[in-house]
């Protein structure tokens, strides 16, 4: 019936690792539901160089009353160097060493019980608990990780680590004993040894290992960093980089033997690697090591290695600690020290005495604060949500014109408690290829990071390009350009920014039919159109040609081809002046308003912005095909035009051909413009190489023979 205690024990609702925020609050509030007990833990590491143990080692552990610990954790390396030990599991030497350690503990072996031990060849870790100790030790679990030399796929285990995990009352503690790669130049392998052991020391609950499924995840799978405390010790083999600084072996030995040995620690590879964050991240070691390097001595003495290799002294033997969170009460209560009197090995043992505040969770207490902690965690989480203020909730561009981009900005100010990352979300059912907004709107930047307290400007630009203007009627909603941007804060809320603009219905982006209606009519209301009507020019514009096209062509013909400089640069301001003159009718005569090239460009833009090309394809898509077929036959071409195109299209085409014919006769070079005109008038697929070159020929033939000539 002993097994039933587990089920009858009151369960704690709080299980660490489910919710980081709740854990944080519960840890802060631990005093509300935990009692703490001071527990002394002595840790020692010793590379024994394969030596057989004495029956005990006096002085290995302090015998002073105040130094006596409840737990002793000892890690040995090179406990067994015999070749056989790699093949046959020979426990004899181990038993000798266990006895030796047991006998060396203060007060003698009868005062201590073994909690657990683990061996990987010569890497051995053992934990003792004093018989008088009141700490409830549970869930003891062991693990080894072999690194170093591989034989086939298996690691030999000459290097690696052994570890013991346990719960002391309700505090998870892990002891890791490791032996890293040796040699001055094997720094990277030592680092790799660390990473391998760190990652592979994972304890699966015994019940799972043994195939019992009775308490599946009651004891969680424990990684190293899941423990409240980790003691990591061993022969880590990190050396001194003194040679890089030109300090000779002799100098190192001299300094190491003097009072100034502490000066050498700055050259320690481990310290350097830790400072760089490559290994032992979040582990701690005392700022100074108040003992001489523990390596390498002539065995049986405390004399630096006199062998041929003459190793440079180093602190190879180390004890480091890790605390899962800052509130864990772990303290080194005596200076770390080495035991110089033990001379059996070429290393010296190192020992450290810690005090650990071992916690005991009061389950009912924990449960009573748990709900409050959840609420507190929610409160904190909501408070930490990113927050911004927008300079405006809505952007109204007012009136926008064709090819006249307009920019407005929204200032986003980070008023929250942390940095803000924002982006724009793609709206559902977006018919614009996963863009964040419609093509007439541009947003920059579309994502960015704003530091706390800072602000940044997001620029919104409305730009009505030819592409857009051709389908402007499909885009307009309630006569407006409308869009809603969804500004999303990472891990936070969304803001909607409605954007509106009124498109100035222009002669650009219109249809031929509509353009035809923009013409002065005598019968218009004289009050509304007073100015316009007063200045009505005598109108010689043919019925079927839109006045805006006629005015541009007339002005160009008046100025003549000689003045047309097609390498001139486009000036948007002048273009806007022309557009405004076309729309207001003032001045009616455009010939003095701008350069020939600007008028010419305006004409091309106007035709290009029409919803359909002048030479449209018609319902059965045969017009272009036919024209290609008759590309050298002016009579057939004009017949096709006359029979297939609507009247206004014919009239405009004839007018344009007339103009081009004049231009070509005045300046032969301008024939180079034919392919541009073909593109404007046909809007054919310029990627179709088979027909692409034929359209200019069609146009040329039509320009060469006016319809009245060719059709007789």
């Amino acid at each position: 019936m002993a097994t039933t205690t587990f089920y009858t024990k009151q369960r704690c609702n709080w299980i660490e690792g489910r919710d980081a925020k709740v854990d944080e609050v519960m840890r802060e509030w631990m005093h509300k539901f935990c009692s703490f007990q001071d527990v002394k833990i002595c840790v020692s590491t010793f590379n024994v160089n394969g030596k057989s143990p004495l029956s005990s080692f006096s002085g290995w552990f302090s015998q002073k009353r105040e130094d006596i610990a409840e737990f002793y954790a000892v890690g040995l390396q090179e406990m067994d160097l015999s070749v056989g030990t790699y093949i046959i599991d020979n426990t004899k030497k181990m038993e000798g060493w266990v006895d030796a350690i047991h006998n060396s503990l203060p007060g003698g072996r009868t005062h201590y019980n073994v909690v657990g031990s683990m061996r990987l060849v010569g890497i051995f870790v053992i934990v003792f608990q004093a018989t008088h100790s009141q700490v409830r030790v549970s869930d003891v679990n062991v693990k080894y990780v072999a690194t170093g030399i591989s034989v086939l796929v298996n690691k030999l285990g000459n290097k690696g680590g052994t570890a013991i995990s346990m719960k002391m009352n309700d505090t998870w503690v892990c002891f890791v004993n490791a032996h890293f790669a040796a040699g001055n130049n094997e720094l990277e392998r030592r680092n790799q040894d660390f990473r391998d052991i760190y990652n592979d020391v994972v304890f699966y609950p015994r019940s799972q290992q043994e195939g019992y499924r009775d308490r599946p995840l009651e004891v969680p799978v424990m990684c190293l960093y899941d423990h409240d405390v980790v003691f990591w010790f061993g022969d880590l083999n990190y050396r001194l980089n003194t040679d890089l600084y030109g300090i000779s072996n002799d100098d190192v030995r001299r300094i190491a033997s003097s009072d100034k040995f502490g000066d050498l620690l700055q050259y320690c590879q481990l310290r350097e690697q830790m400072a760089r964050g490559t290994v032992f991240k979040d582990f701690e070691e005392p700022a100074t090591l108040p003992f001489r390097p523990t390596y390498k001595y002539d065995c049986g003495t405390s004399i630096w290695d006199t062998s041929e290799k003459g190793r440079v002294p180093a602190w190879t033997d180390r004890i480091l600690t890790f605390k899962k969170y800052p509130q864990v009460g772990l303290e080194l209560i005596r200076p770390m020290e080495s035991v110089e009197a033990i001379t059996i090995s070429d290393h010296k043992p190192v020992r450290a005495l810690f005090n650990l505040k071992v916690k005991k969770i009061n389950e009912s207490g924990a449960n009573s604060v748990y709900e409050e902690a959840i609420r507190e965690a929610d409160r904190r989480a909501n408070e930490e949500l990113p927050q911004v203020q927008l300079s405006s909730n809505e952007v109204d561009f007012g009136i926008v014109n064709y090819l006249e981009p307009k920019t407005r900005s929204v200032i986003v100010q980070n008023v929250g408690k942390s940095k803000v990352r924002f982006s724009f979300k793609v709206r559902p059912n977006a018919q614009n290829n996963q863009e964040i907004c419609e093509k007439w709107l541009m947003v920059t930047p579309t994502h960015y990071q704003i530091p706390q307290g800072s602000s940044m400007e997001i620029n919104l630009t409305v730009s009505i390009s030819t592409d857009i203007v051709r389908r402007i009627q499909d885009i307009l909603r309630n006569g407006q350009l409308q869009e809603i941007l969804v500004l999303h804060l990472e891990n936070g809320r969304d803001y909607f920014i409605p954007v509106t603009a009124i498109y100035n219905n222009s002669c650009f982006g219109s249809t031929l039919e509509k353009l035809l209606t923009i013409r002065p009519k005598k019968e218009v209301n004289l009050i509304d159109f007073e100015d316009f009507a007063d200045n009505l020019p005598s109108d010689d514009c043919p019925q079927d040609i839109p006045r805006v096209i006629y005015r541009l062509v007339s002005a160009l013909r008046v100025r003549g081809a000689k003045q047309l400089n097609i390498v001139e640069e486009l000036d948007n301001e002048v273009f806007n002046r022309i557009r405004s003159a076309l729309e207001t009718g003032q001045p009616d005569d455009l010939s003095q308003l701008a350069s020939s090239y600007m008028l010419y460009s305006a004409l091309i833009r106007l035709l290009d912005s029409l919803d359909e090309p002048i030479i449209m394809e018609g319902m059965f898509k045969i017009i272009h095909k036919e024209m290609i077929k008759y590309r050298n036959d002016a009579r057939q071409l004009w017949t096709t035009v006359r029979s297939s195109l609507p009247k206004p299209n014919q009239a405009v085409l004839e007018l344009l051909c007339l103009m081009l014919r004049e231009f070509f006769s005045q300046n032969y070079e301008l024939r180079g413009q034919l392919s541009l005109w073909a593109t404007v008038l046909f809007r054919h697929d310029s990627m179709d190489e088979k027909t692409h070159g034929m359209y200019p020929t069609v146009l040329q033939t039509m320009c060469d023979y006016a319809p009245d000539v060719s059709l007789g």
Partner: protein
Amino acid sequence: MAARNAGGAARPGGPNRTCQFKLVLLGESAVGKSSLVLRFVKGQFHEYQESTIGAAFLTQTVCLDDATIKFEIWDTAGQERYHSLAPMYYRGAQAAIVVYDITNQESFQKAKNWVKELQRQASPNIVMALAGNKADVANKRTVEYEEANAYAEDNALLFMETSAKTSMNVNDIFMAIAKKLPIGPAQGEPTGTVDMNQPQQQQKGSCCK
């Protein structure tokens, strides 16, 4: 031995699970969606709550007997012009509260439209609740309790009249939803819940934040 095996039926992590659910609030503007959330999450009430332009986000956890439910609450803008953006928020939601104002008949009609849209477009397993808010001004009521209740019954909705101002039924409606949410997915039936029992290091790659 029998005692040992009895424990074998226990769900991983024991009876107290933590699950995260996305909940969305929908309804006409000014019916009190933000006020309900503010009351539920912070226990506050502002007489003049600003209009929500966008979708506000808050989290709140509730404890049931055998589970801890963490709500990820999206409080959406009610104005009609933002209607087309609502799917961004109710898609993938496991719960929705459709809110109307008991003094505003039109808001009740809008609520019905929302319910219809959710029935059509949202996840078929979504837990829906109807909240008739502003129950503190029942003297100005234009939507009868019985009418709304009957509608809710017909459509299998949870229904409560609530008041963000007096906090009447506010916690209750969220709790009622929590109790209806699928805790502990049956084998082979993904529900979109996130089991947070696994230590967080092992959760990478799941949809849990």
